[in-house]
């Protein structure tokens, strides 16, 4: 049987000769403390067991009972309220103790003539209210354990009270203890108390038991300057405060609460007195370095969770705690970086949505914030957001350029990436593959621009954000257009021989059309400069041999020459005509001016041709009559030759 901690305190011996008796039945559940040398100088102690007599609960209700022999009667003036009398012999034997436990009392009885009572036991009854105790001015021990009391009241006259046991009742609020300034032990375990209050005047209180209540935080301890033991087990406490203000606090029991971190009990670090602490059953204990943190911070602690704290442990603890702190710092840094990354990528996505959906606003788009992100993961370079492309030009972007063999584009419009293709091969010589996600690739002609990468082993165009993948023939076209790449994988699927053959079947007429529709000059213009010179010289030598005159033959020669002189991995001429001009590139000023000049020239020629034609047509009309008139005049003149000659001569004379 657990003996109450202060049980060894000496009592005013006469009054309670049997208080060291132990009773088998469970009463209050104060913990068993090993220290037994606590001595209270005032010499007053209490025993949870009211020792006198002590029988078990009697079955008879009225009349004389075994144990404390009392007589129950009813007062005529207050019906329903029992009055307790004691026979004078009994009173003389135990004048200051009265044991009324298990008497099935529902109301506090009126105690007739017991003004000298110092110890009163009402355990295991059904009392609902504390009443009729106002005359007991000398009471120092009141036990109301295991009743049905709902409210602390009726104690205002008991200014000498030292021990108040109110465990296992239905009390929901701590109140009305104002006059109990001498209170030494207060037991309120097993109630429904939600808040710690109205205790600050109890400056002599040494033991406070609030186990088994509904407290969520434990502060408001100022004033309890004598408190040495505080039991807060089995509550819902998440926060403890102000305990460093209690200069005498030795033992603190917080088992089975809701303490989650050391921060919730940080005030204990300031306590110089705390020797024993119990925190088992709290979420905090599952943290990795729980013990070390507590030992490190609570320098006076000698026992934690019923285990002794050694000096070695203390030393180790501080080391561990430092390490933990550093790890946490690293963690928060990493967390912050991760968050930045997430926000940037999200912004890039919103930017892409804005551009694509033609909405003026997209929820959550942070116009000022970062809307691109670049990272390197193993050998993949990932770019999010259109502005990330600017980083491709900078030198410091990637530490080890020769290790990158895959570039991943997300939320970047394809047309913005196209101008960078030629640079990619130069900057990342080990590049093997590209992936496009959310790139708004919507047309087959856009695939033509991939030829500027010059070589690729695998390519992925993800269905997300790329309407092109809805077309059933896009892969075949890709294979045809980039046949000189010998791509090995498209969208993570191997390219089979059948695929290549089908691609060739489907689209070879595109290339053939080029060779038919383009004349020599245009064919030459689609070749890159270096190849063009080569092919031209080849062609010239052939021409001289064969003496080609017709341009058709020259064209055939050119085609043959080009086919012969093609290095592996370069595209053939017929495919080279399939280009992609991004819409953003405006027609160069030169072309426009050329066109204007041509137009002007033609217009001039046309105007002059038309005017000449008109003149001719007009001449046609009048020519007949002009000729006729001329002939007629001549014939006429010839007939009258003399007259004509005379006229002519006279004309000559006159002028």
């Amino acid at each position, binding site marked *: 049987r657990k003996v109450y901690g202060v049980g060894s305190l000496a009592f005013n011996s006469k009054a309670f000769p049997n208080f060291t008796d132990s009773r088998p039945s469970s009463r209050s559940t104060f913990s068993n403390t090993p220290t037994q040398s606590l001595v209270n100088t005032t010499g007053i102690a209490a025993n949870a067991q009211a020792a006198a007599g002590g029988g078990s609960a009697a079955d008879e209700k009225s009349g004389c009972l075994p144990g404390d022999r009392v007589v129950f009667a009813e007062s005529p003036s207050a019906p329903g309220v029992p009055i307790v009398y004691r026979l004078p012999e009994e009173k003389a034997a135990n004048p200051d103790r009265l044991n009324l436990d298990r008497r099935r009392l529902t109301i506090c009885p009126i105690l007739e003539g017991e003004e000298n009572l110092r110890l009163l036991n009402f355990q295991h009854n059904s009392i609902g209210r504390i009443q009729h105790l106002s005359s007991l001015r000398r009471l120092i021990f009141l036990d109301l354990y295991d009743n049905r009391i709902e409210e602390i009241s009726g104690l205002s006259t008991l200014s000498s009270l030292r021990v108040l046991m109110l465990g296992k009742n239905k009390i929901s609020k701590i109140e009305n203890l104002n006059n109990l300034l001498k209170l030494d032990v207060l037991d309120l375990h097993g109630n429904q108390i939600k808040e710690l209050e109205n205790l600050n005047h109890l400056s002599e209180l040494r033991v406070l038991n609030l186990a088994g209540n509904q407290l969520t935080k434990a502060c408001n301890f100022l004033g309890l300057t004598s408190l040495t033991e505080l039991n807060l087990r089995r509550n819902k406490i998440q926060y403890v405060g102000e305990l460093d203000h209690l200069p005498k606090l030795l033992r603190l029991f917080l088992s089975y609460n809701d303490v989650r971190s050391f921060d919730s009990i940080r005030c204990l670090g300031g306590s110089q007195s705390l020797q024993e602490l119990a925190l088992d059953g709290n979420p905090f204990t599952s943290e990795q370095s729980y013990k070390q943190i507590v030992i490190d911070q609570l320098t006076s602690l000698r026992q934690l969770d019923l285990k002794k704290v050694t000096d070695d442990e203390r030393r180790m603890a501080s080391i561990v705690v430092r390490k933990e702190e550093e790890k946490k710092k690293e963690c928060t840094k990493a967390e912050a970086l991760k968050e930045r990354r997430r926000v940037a990528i999200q912004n890039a996505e919103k930017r892409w949505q804005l551009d694509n959906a033609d909405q003026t606003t997209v929820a959550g788009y942070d116009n000022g914030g970062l809307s691109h992100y670049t990272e390197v993961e193993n050998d993949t370079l990932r770019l999010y957001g259109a502005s990330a492309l600017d980083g491709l030009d900078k030198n410091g972007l990637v530490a080890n350029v020769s290790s990158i063999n895959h570039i991943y584009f997300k939320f970047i419009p394809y047309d913005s990436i196209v101008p960078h293709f030629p640079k990619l091969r130069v900057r990342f010589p080990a590049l093997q593959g590209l992936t496009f996600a959310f790139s708004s690739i*919507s*047309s*087959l*002609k856009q695939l*033509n621009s991939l030829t500027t990468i010059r070589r690729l082993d695998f390519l992925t165009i993800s269905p997300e954000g790329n*309407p*092109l993948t*809805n*077309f*059933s*023939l896009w892969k075949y*076209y890709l294979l045809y257009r980039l046949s000189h790449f010998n791509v090995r994988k498209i969208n993570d699927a191997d390219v089979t021989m059948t695929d290549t053959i*089908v691609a060739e*079947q*489907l*689209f*070879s*007429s*595109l290339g053939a*059309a*080029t060779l*038919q*529709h*383009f*004349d*020599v*000059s*245009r064919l*030459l*213009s689609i070749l890159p400069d270096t190849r*063009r010179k080569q092919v*031209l010289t080849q062609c010239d030598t052939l021409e001289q041999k064969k003496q080609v005159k017709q*341009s058709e033959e020259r064209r055939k020669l050119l085609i043959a020459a080009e086919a012969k002189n093609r290095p592996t991995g370069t595209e053939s001429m017929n495919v080279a*005509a*399939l280009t*992609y*001009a991004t819409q953003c590139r405006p027609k160069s000023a030169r*072309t426009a001016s*050329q*066109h204007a*000049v*041509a*137009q002007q*020239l*033609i*217009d001039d*020629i*046309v105007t002059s*041709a*038309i005017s000449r*034609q*008109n003149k001719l047509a007009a001449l046609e009309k009048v020519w007949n009559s002009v000729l006729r008139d001329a002939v007629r005049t001549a014939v006429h003149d010839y007939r009258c030759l003399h007259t004509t000659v005379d006229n002519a001569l006279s004309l000559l004379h006159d002028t």
Partner: protein
Amino acid sequence: MSSESKDRFSQTPEAYLASHHIVPHLCHALSSLYTLKDSDPKLQPFRYLSDYFARVSAGQHVLHQDYAYISTSPHNRASFVKLLWRTYKSIGNHGDLLTAKEYHALIQLLCADFPFTIVQSSARIILMDDAISDCLMAFQDFLYAFQVQFCFNEFLNACRELYLSLSAEKGNSTPRLEGVESSKFLDGITALLSNNTYHHPSIRVIHRILSKSQKASFYTYLLGIANSDTINSSVGVLPKKSQCLETENKSVKSD
């Protein structure tokens, strides 16, 4: 064609130039000359011009050109249809059914700025509906619809306006389904043609199509034009629809 009835000598010079679209061709030829003279050192201007017009007459001048150039003359447009047929016959043979958008992408491989509206209108002819854009079509169907839509684009648009105004007169709630009086429609079309110079299919064929029933809906009218062999042969670039996917064994390879 109105110009066929007139002898070329009885036309004014301007009319002659316009009817044969000579000025645009010349401009185009000259611009190409400018751009190409850097690539080919042996380029001779007059030879180039004669080659150019030889290609124009053979219909081989429309690949990888601007839409503005391709749509200049009926001949250009017809040549483009022929090009389309020749290039993608293999896809038709392969049997894939494609959406309007995919056909548009394929067309844009041949002409980079070809507009989607014409492809969409062609799709509508086949689908008889306001372009559910994901509906699949066979290559032959699309090709013949595209031919009439592209070659007679302005004419067909005018017919559509006429049709809508006629059905509005009648107070039709669903003009597409109910149709209008064929005779009224035909009269309207004749009036259109006499007032404007659209390139249009033969009036006789239109008459024949519309006289098949009393009421004509716009899409049956269009389908009739698309499927008519006579009109097809008058455009002169595609074989009969039943034969369009056959490989050309007998015809000359390079034309």
